[in-house]
């Protein structure tokens, strides 16, 4: 797997490259947006990591110029120095798949990278019975269970739970969830997502005691992860 890292902060980039190489990824490092945009058409990358602020242009601008040249972009993670709501909104609006707040730990960076690669390379699974940890989902009967005990989920809750499970570790924006699960425009009542997510947390016991961590990211998005 090959990863492009675009970051002008050498001290941090060095650490990140080391982590990624230890995890047996190949890494191409670029210091400016222009370097990367020139090289990109001649290489294949499975994932890109961009710093938000670069000396010659901003991360999202690099992404836009890539979009002009290629139809499909590899999964993209932004490195941001800030972790405020407006920054996260900017990341999601820019169309990135995830973000990592600098200086992130090794575990977090690799978790984000792996989650996105897993989603990008997942094969369609036609088996109606899916297992995620101790949770079992029967997509035919639309039943979720744990240790033989069935959960009473509404239709939407089931869809939402399954979507979370299939995208474990991935940042799912609220508007994306509205579209995928409700088929609705993201502008209509958004409390709906919050209510459903909080029901799921309670019903499926998505808590660290049961090996899960369901995080709301400023209510702009959600992430379901396995907890150690």
């Amino acid at each position, binding site marked *: 797997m090959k990863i492009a890292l675009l970051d002008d902060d050498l001290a*941090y980039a060095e650490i990140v490259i080391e982590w990624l190489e230890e995890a047996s990824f190949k890494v191409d490092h670029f210091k400016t947006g222009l370097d990367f945009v020139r090289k990109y058409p001649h290489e294949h990358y499975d994932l890109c990591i961009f710093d938000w602020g670069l000396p010659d242009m901003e991360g999202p601008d690099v992404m836009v110029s890539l979009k002009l040249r290629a139809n499909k972009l590899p999964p993209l993670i932004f490195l941001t120095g800030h972790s405020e709501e407006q920054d996260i909104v900017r990341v999601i609006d820019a169309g990135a798949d995830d973000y990592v707040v600098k200086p992130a730990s090794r575990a977090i960076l690799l978790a984000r990278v792996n989650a996105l690669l897993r989603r990008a390379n997942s094969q369609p699974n036609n088996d109606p019975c899916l297992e995620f940890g101790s949770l079992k989902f029967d997509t035919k009967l639309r039943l979720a269970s744990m240790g033989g005990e069935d959960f009473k989920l509404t239709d939407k809750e089931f869809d939402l739970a399954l979507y979370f499970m299939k995208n474990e570790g991935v940042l799912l924006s609220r508007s994306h969830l509205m579209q995928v699960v409700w088929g609705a425009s993201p502008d209509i009542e958004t409390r709906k997502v919050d209510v459903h997510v909080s029901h799921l947390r309670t019903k499926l016991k998505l808590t660290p*005691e049961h090996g899960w961590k369901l995080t709301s990211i400023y209510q702009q998005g959600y992430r379901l992860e396995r907890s150690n």
Partner: protein
Amino acid sequence: MQFKDRILIMTALGLFACLLVISVDFNAHIFSVIVDNKSVEHAPTWLTCLLTFILAVLPFFWFSKFSPFRSFLSICAYIIAVVSLLFSVAYFYKVWIPPTGAILAILLAYPLWSSSKVNATQAALDQALQNLQDELARLGMEQVAESPHSVEDPQQARIRKLALTAKHLRDMHKSRTDTLVFISHDIRSPLGAAMLLLDKFEPNKYSVRMRQLLERAHTMAEGFLQASRAEMSDVNKFHVLDMVSLTQQVVDDIYELLATKNITLEMHLPEDNVWVRGDFGLLFRAVSNVLLNAVSYSPQGAVIKVIIDKDDVTMCLKVIDQGPGIPEDKIQKLFKRFSRAESEQQDQSGCGLGLYFVGITIRKHRGTASVGNVNMPGTINIQGAEFLITLPLERRKNNLPVTYDRRVKPEPTFEDTI
């Protein structure tokens, strides 16, 4: 003063004068009726003089206590009272004391007194403003003099000068906060990177000590940054959020820490969502700070209670720990900057900004944050500390940010900040 207002006041004065004339005419009529009645006698001159003096001097006792408008109203009421009193005396006791002297004195006293008061106030304000400007000038921050408007009376010029100075101070305050945010943020990044690099070394006693120092500096930079953010947060950008989910998420976040200290959380949360309007990031950190504080002051294997309650208009979050409690003299200061309930055996890793942040954040959300000790039932022995946060519930149905919220009071202009 607006042109409109002047017209209004002039009309009111004119009407008042007319009323006065009419009432004087009316009084004169009654007066002649009373005096024509032979049984009414004129009071001796000494009594008239004495009474006139007393009646004229009396208002000065309450003048200084009232605002100008109230003084004006009280003078009107007083004149009516004096006239009625003297007429009643004439009617019941058949002695006539002419009210003219007293009324004239009172009518003259009011403008005299108020103009002298206004002059004194104005002089004091001018002096204060001048001092402030001199002080700013000494700091090398002179104001840019604006060309005065062509039609501007001294009062307007004064108000404009004051507004300009206020704006200047506000700008300075903002630039100070901006600088602080900038420094805190830019110090944080290299510190973080240094901590990551430290992982490369085999841990020894120096690297452990160094990590502690770096972490402390990092926490402090973070604390300053967050407190400034809380102060600068814009209430108009708040969203509707569920405090139950938020609290659960905070608890999930500190799960590992709880496990290492073997602390049990006893959660009493309502089944329904509890909606408030706020900034998710700030409230998350505030609840987190309160819980972390409880954890750091709790002994191994303790129980911490987390309770959310609500009534029709407010919700409250209680965090009750089994720590040593808070010394009485520290309770008042706990939400202030750099304060810690210091006691011998507690770890001192906090930078004293955690609860300060809680205080600012909850105030921004129009809530209250308070703390107290929980006593053993029936004794005065302290069983632990109780943190209480209350927030107003959101009653609107939609989730759009409000553009203008009338319930939000304007911010005090020069609130002390870090």
